[in-house]
């Protein structure tokens, strides 16, 4: 028996994250009575930055290790960068928030790091087991984080729902993996693909069925109709910082695994899945946008909007060309900035006791907190796809990919959807700028970390809108090995 080659440098970013996760736990254990624990956050930030830097050293080289279970190719690296950015921002916005909400445990930060680890594994896994374990690591941490506000009924309910449905979805995902395994006798994506082509299993019912199961499993994570129904509730109930984390990180991770599995393991089945994905994409966009219109809670509204965005991304998924894939990466990046930014504003507008998450609470803040409102406007417009903001460019690439593959009706539906979406994004700006506030919101305390996060988000959104070229070429380079 021989040990496999163990290349720790390969997984150094993950190791760093994990190590800092445990470090935080330990420090928390040894200084239990510390009043303010934001230094824990800072430690996490250090860790993230380190791992980020290390990730950059890995750029350009495609290495694979652990019997091909873990690969660090461009795709993985892009997503790692993305996840690290998301984690970075999340922790920034958490530092003030958790303290305010009295959930400032070391575990909180540690779990964020662990789930980040899970995401990184999902994007880097080229073996179904890695992907599965990564997904579980992420999910379980998120289940807990969602329920962090223990005396808030809604938070607990969110945790419960997310947990049950998540486990349910996991069951389906597993069955899918099992069938895939049964049909091909392998769990390694590359081998699966090769085996399918060699044996020409394109009509194998078992594989078909596993496609169904996998679609469910991943569709759940990216919140696509009809597997989306957990999203609004969980997003609304969970702590806002975690909502931001879920809306961006989990979605992105889901997509990374989704793309990885479908494009590199089952590319032969594109004709089969395309039409289904077409359907799902349309349904996702439409449901998300239409239901968002009649929401009163901004977190819930953003939840529906994030469903809609999943739909837009799926447009590129349907398109299936490399334009589309790079478009997806770009989209996820832009979405991370604008969405976290939006949630940051939501956080900043709340205070202990009153969350101020009703859209009506936003009345009149446009001139009371001009900068806050302005940044919110930027994020919302970006989500609505108004140039020159990141959201527009993202939509632009995604749709252009679909046009390239001649899915004209899909694109038309998509753009009409984004026109509809404008309505509810505008609603917020209407309230912020056009209405006088009937209820004074005072005594807000802007934690510097969150403000910093806000600035980063704004810069990111604008940058990706005005100078998209760099990020785009990064994305395009990243998908080189994938297909």
């Amino acid at each position, binding site marked *: 028996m021989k040990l496999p080659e163990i290349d720790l440098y390969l997984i150094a970013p993950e190791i760093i994250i994990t190590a800092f996760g445990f470090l935080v736990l330990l420090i928390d254990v040894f200084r239990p009575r510390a009043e303010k624990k934001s230094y824990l956050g800072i430690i996490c930030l250090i860790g993230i930055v380190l791992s980020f830097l290390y990730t950059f050293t890995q750029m350009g080289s495609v290495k694979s290790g652990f019997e091909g279970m873990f690969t660090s190719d461009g795709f993985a690296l892009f997503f790692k960068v993305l996840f690290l950015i998301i984690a970075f921002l999340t922790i920034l916005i958490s530092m003030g928030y958790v303290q305010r909400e009295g959930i400032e445990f070391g575990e909180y930060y540690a*779990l964020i790091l662990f789930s980040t680890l899970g995401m990184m594994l999902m994007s880097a896994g080229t073996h179904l087991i890695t992907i599965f374990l990564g997904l579980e690591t992420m999910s379980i941490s998120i289940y807990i984080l969602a329920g962090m506000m223990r005396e808030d009924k809604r938070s607990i309910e969110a945790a419960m729902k997310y947990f049950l449905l998540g486990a349910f979805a996991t069951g389906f995902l597993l069955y899918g993996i099992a069938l895939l395994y049964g049909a091909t*006798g392998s769990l390694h994506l590359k081998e699966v693909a090769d085996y399918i082509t060699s044996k020409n299993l394109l009509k194998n019912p078992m594989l078909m069925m596993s496609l169904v199961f996998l679609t469910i499993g991943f569709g759940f994570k990216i919140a696509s109709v009809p597997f989306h129904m957990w999203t609004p509730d969980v997003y609304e109930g969970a702590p806002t910082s975690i909502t931001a984390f879920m809306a961006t990180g989990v979605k992105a991770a889901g997509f990374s695994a989704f793309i990885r599995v479908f494009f590199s393991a089952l590319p032969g089945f594109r004709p089969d899945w395309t039409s289904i994905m077409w359907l799902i994409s349309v349904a996702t966009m439409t449901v998300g946008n239409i239901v968002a219109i009649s929401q009163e809670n901004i977190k819930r509204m953003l939840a529906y909007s994030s469903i809609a965005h999943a739909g837009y991304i799926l447009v590129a998924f349907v398109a299936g060309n490399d334009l589309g894939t790079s478009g997806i990466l770009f989209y996820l990046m832009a979405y991370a900035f604008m969405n976290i930014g939006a949630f940051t504003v939501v956080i900043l507008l709340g205070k202990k006791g009153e969350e101020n998450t009703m859209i009506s609470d936003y009345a009149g803040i446009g001139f009371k907190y001009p900068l806050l409102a302005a940044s919110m406007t930027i994020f919302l417009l970006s989500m609505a796809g108004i140039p020159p903001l990141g959201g527009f460019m993202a939509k632009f690439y995604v749709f252009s990919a679909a046009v390239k593959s001649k899915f004209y009706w899909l694109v038309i539906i998509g753009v009409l959807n984004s026109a509809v979406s404008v309505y509810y994004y505008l609603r917020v700006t209407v309230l912020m700028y056009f209405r006088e506030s009937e209820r004074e919101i005072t005594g807000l305390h802007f934690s510097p970390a969150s403000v910093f996060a806000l600035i980063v988000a704004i810069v990111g959104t604008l940058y990706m809108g005005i100078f998209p070229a760099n990020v785009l070429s990064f994305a395009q380079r990243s998908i080189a090995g994938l297909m």
Partner: protein
Amino acid sequence: MAENIGNLFQWLIFLGAGFLSILASILVITRKNPIHSALFMVLTFLCVAVLYILLHSQFIAIIQVVVYAGAIVMLIVFVIMLLDLEEELRRGLKIVYSKVIGSFLALIFLLGILYSVVARSPAGKVGVYDLDKMKTSTKTFGEVLFTKYLFPFEVVSILLVAAIIGAVVLSKRRR
């Protein structure tokens, strides 16, 4: 002749365990009292463990018994007792259409699954671990686990840690 007998026995065991497991699992989801459900789940797990043995993976069978039937279900039972949950009330049985339709859909879905698994026999690549290797499946398993699957093994440890601290942070009392 000999393997005829063997096969026959295998069939008998299989049928027995299989039907029992189905029966038990049906009971799991029908018993009003969660405790009963839990106990029937133990039964299901045991039957499945038997099948594992039939499938020559004794180790998993043991794990099944220890971890599942042992740890998890005990944990569940423990929690149920902790919360001393009453039986589900009658109104729980009142027909809720979504549930009926849901079950119906699930059955349709079952047809799909069955079709997919029966239509063609598993066409996967046949590996090296033939029967006589499997005689010592535990050893083989260990080898594979700690060589090829080393990395996932590490990962799952982190996963478990996360789960544990999560469980702790959730259920510990307020300071």
